[in-house]
């Protein structure tokens, strides 16, 4: 049970990251690797703020804001300094490694006794049930873990709804159109470059938020924690698309898909780890998974065409 709760909590936290990747990769069609740095930036900024006694919600907001600045920087490099999109992300990500070390002052900030966003829920739970463990379906669950799960679930639901609303606002629709058809949105009088910068800021803000919550859940921020996170997010949204159907392009379905995809992926990983998958192999497995998810449909299309003749369109 602890395993399931852990996987759910972790999945929900990372689904904020997946929402960020959804915006950059699917909506802006921008392959943004800043993510690997901005999740760590969100975590380290929040950790430092918390250790210095800041209110946990403010500290979380701070992590989100830091992520937004990182996305803004990547966007500017690409749109105004004409640097290739992948390289813009790599430059900012690399710079962030040093910046994160500067922010934390060392490579790792533990925050065992700091407050966190789940304290409030924990207090509520303890008031109604003054023991350290609550039983769910007969399994004893630490109050702390449950409080975190509830807080994160509420936060993710709130952010998901907010994001859905944002994508339907005047400016949100312009951002979506800029990602899909820059020529079209320019003809409607919008500078598509600023939409891209703005979209990347929102995207990395969500990633920073994910890092901020992750640090509080784990109880530490670490300069290495962002490695491979973009691919993680990618894997999650690919699973999500398999769940809700890739053809659905309604913003609500895209967001739901990303949320469900991340949680499912985390559960699968938890099971695989339980079965004896070496944690060191995790990133390799994730990368292979994304590779397979990108390539298999194309092969399937080709084989389908060979076997059945005619023009298949599975890989189009």
């Amino acid at each position, binding site marked *: 049970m602890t395993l399931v709760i852990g996987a759910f909590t972790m999945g929900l936290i990372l689904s904020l990251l997946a929402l960020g990747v959804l915006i950059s990769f699917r909506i802006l069609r921008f392959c943004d690797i800043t993510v690997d740095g901005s999740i760590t930036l969100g975590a380290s900024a929040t950790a430092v703020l918390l250790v210095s006694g800041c209110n946990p919600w403010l500290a979380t907001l701070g992590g989100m804001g830091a992520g937004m600045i990182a996305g803004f920087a990547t966007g500017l490099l690409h749109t105004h300094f004409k640097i290739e999109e992948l390289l813009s992300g790599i430059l900012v990500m690399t710079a962030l490694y040093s910046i994160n070390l500067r922010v934390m002052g060392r490579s790792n900030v533990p925050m065992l006794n700091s407050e966190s966003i789940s304290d409030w829920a924990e207090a509520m739970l303890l008031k109604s049930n003054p023991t350290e463990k609550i039983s769910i379906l007969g399994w004893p669950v630490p109050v702390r873990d449950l409080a975190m799960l509830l807080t994160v679930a509420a936060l993710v639901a709130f952010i998901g709804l907010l994001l859905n609303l944002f994508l*339907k606002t*005047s400016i949100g629709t312009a951002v*979506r*159109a800029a990602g*899909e058809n820059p020529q079209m949105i320019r003809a*409607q*009088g919008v500078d598509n470059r600023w939409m891209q910068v703005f979209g990347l800021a929102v995207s990395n803000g969500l990633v920073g938020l994910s890092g901020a919550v992750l640090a509080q859940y784990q109880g530490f921020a670490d300069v290495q924690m962002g490695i491979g996170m973009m691919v993680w997010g990618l894997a999650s949204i690919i699973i999500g698309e398999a769940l809700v159907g890739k053809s659905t392009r309604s913003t609500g379905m895209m967001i739901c898909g990303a949320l469900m995809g991340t949680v499912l992926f985390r559960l699968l990983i938890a099971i695989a780890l339980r079965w004896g998958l070496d944690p060191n192999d995790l990133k390799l497995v994730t990368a292979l998974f994304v590779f397979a998810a990108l390539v298999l449909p194309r092969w399937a299309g080709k084989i389908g065409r060979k076997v059945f003749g005619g023009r298949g369109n599975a890989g189009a």
Partner: protein
Amino acid sequence: MLELNNVKKTFFPGTPNEVQALRGISMKLEDGCFAAIIGTNGSGKSTSLNAVAGSFMVDSGQIHLDGHDITKWPEYRRASLIGRVFQNPFAGTAAEMTIAENIVLSMRRGKTRGLGLALNRRIREEIKERIRPLNMGLETRIDNPIGTLSGGQRQALTLLMATWLRPKLLLLDEHTAALDPKSAAQVAVLTKEIIEREKLTALMVTHSMQQAVQLPHRIIMMHKGQIVEDIYGERKARVKVADLMNAFDRVRRRDLFDASVAEQVLPQFA
């Protein structure tokens, strides 16, 4: 009024691929005038329209529209004055967004966009009202992705979007060329209707001599980056497809003549 003053544009200057696409274009288009641009392939028709729309900055010359010197304005800024329909029916809309979302984007062309919801019931009703006369049954499908529509339907909607807010200038670049004959005719009729009803100033590139004779008030013929014929008023009223064909023949013959003269003359200088 649109005014071009000796506009020049060379692509890839100073390289073997150098193309002098516009060699000094000057013209005045009065308010409410609908002009067609015809000409051979590569004569600079699209480049002229792109120069006005701001797809690139011209090398020299000035462009004035509605009293503004827009020569240095970026493309998105010019869009506050200009409505545009492209040759490719997919270029003017965002395929994965719904019909309503696409249209609502054009309802704020050139205006600020904020954090208010783009669509509400009133706006949705307005959209339905204005697409019903298309008689394409689209008013019941405004929440479907626009990518699920046919090229003709998309082009009709793009035209509607370009003119939703009355533009000071409408630019049409062979906007019926990629459509099947029936849709092409439908969109051509719609174009004429909208331009006449709104008394729009418009520039339309076309390859169809038929269209050039029937639709506009004025015909501009281009060749090798220059305007070689400008037919308006009385002459336009009398012009026939055959006359345009003759005009084409004349410029072709002159080309051949130039080439053969050059062949004869060059050796003397070599």
